């Protein structure tokens, strides 16, 4: 294992709050282990800043095992950084060169206003979910697990879409700041299952309408979203969303 210590130069976007203008600040962090995660490296930087009496760099993180969707910012122009299929918390310093300058920016979209530094407000996603990303079920005792039979292929296809952790990297990476990958994954996840059928048309119309209301851009099929998605969610779900949307519109 490579135990050589590394140094990184970080150009980090610092912004006090949503209204304040932001700017890049250069930090150098020394004596880093290549086996550290990227967020651990930021923890080290923040310790140093705190000791010096400066404000630490704000960033979001929770589980730090790539499954919660809390973390995420843009590293050298790519959301979640240079490795495919992982969140920024699952990124390690061995993917960087000793002495490299790394630029850290928050996800940039009108729908994701910066709260502070690298932290953005992704509640637009919550409002899209509230608009239709659910199924309505009667309360009462839990239904029998096998009362609705679902073929394994269908269950797996639905799960591929349901793997979306809602991190927002798709929006960040999209040249148009479109939320199509997120919204389509959520639509597809339910549209592929029998439980999602009764509200299928209503759901796609409402979720797309809310997506537009939140000021996300339109989809130009750049496919950059799929490339940065930590869960490798395919743009095939965007095609599915479009088919479903058209069907719902014609049925209206």
């Amino acid at each position, binding site marked *: 294992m490579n135990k050589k210590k590394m140094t990184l130069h970080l150009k980090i976007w610092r912004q006090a709050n949503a209204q304040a203008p932001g700017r890049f600040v250069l930090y150098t962090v020394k004596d880093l282990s290549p086996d550290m995660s990227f967020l651990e490296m930021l923890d080290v930087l923040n310790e140093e800043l705190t000791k010096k009496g400066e404000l630490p760099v704000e960033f979001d993180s929770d589980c730090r095992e790539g499954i919660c969707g809390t973390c995420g910012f*843009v590293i050298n*122009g*790519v959301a979640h950084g240079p490795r495919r299929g992982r969140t920024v918390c699952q990124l390690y310093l061995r993917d960087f060169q000793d002495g490299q300058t790394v630029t850290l920016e928050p996800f940039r979209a*009108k729908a994701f206003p910066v709260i502070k530094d690298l932290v953005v407000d992704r509640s637009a996603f919550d409002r899209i979910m509230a608009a239709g990303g659910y199924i309505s079920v009667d309360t009462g005792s839990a239904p029998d697990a096998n009362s609705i039979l679902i073929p394994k292929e269908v269950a797996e296809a639905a799960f591929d879409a349901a793997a979306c952790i809602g991190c927002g990297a798709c929006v960040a990476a999209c040249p148009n*700041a479109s939320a199509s990958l997120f919204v389509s994954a959520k639509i597809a996840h339910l549209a592929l299952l029998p439980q999602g059928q009764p509200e299928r048309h209503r759901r796609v119309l409402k979720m797309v309408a809310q997506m537009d209301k939140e000021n*996300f*851009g339109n989809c130009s099929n750049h*496919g950059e979203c799929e490339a940065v998605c930590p869960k490798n969610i395919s743009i*095939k779900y965007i*095609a599915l969303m479009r088919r479903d949307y058209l069907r719902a519109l014609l049925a209206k």
Partner: protein
Amino acid sequence: MALWPRSSVAKKFLNGLTGVGLTLFIIVHLAGNLLLLTGNPDDFNRYAHKLESLGPLLWLAEIGLALFFIVHIFSALSVYVDKLRARPVRYAVSGNAGGASRKTISSQTMIVTGLVLLLFVPWHVASLKFGPGVEEGYVAIVDGLLVRDLHSWVIEYFQNPVHVALYVLVMLLLGLHLRHGVWSMIQTLGAYHPRLTPLWYTGGVVFALVMAVGFLVIPIWIYVNGAKI
């Protein structure tokens, strides 16, 4: 349902649908143009005359085509305006994640290549279709009929190196537009298939190349061969 949709998905759908129509149009257009290279001026003049003699049918087709252009342009502009609004603060560093990304120079310049084509089309139609005809003496006899000698005018038109250079440049940009446009319109219409999508993604590149080369070879050929053809 209003005539002009408000939702992003519907607007993009119109863009894809009109894209399909315009793509089919340029295929037919290129096939017609290739008649310029047969060595017999009658072939092209006969074709042009047959088109013109369709009368009201041709006008209908032309109005339809114009509508396709207009809807394609407005839906594209709406995507572009939404994009500008959706990211008011731009990234300092922009990257390409590679892998599954289809972000290319072509996909990122659709609005530019599209606007160049928008400027090109009226100039192109005015100088060739509405160029000099029978009244100006461009007359040919084809199959015993007195028809407009569009062939001679096209040959004459492309003796000007500036015209040739501009056409070649615009056709290269058309190729760049089609390189993303062809696969993108299929995806926009909701057609995705794990095996077919890579096929039409690559097929789109080949198609773009064939169309660009097909169109730009004609003015070059005419210029190089001079008034001989």
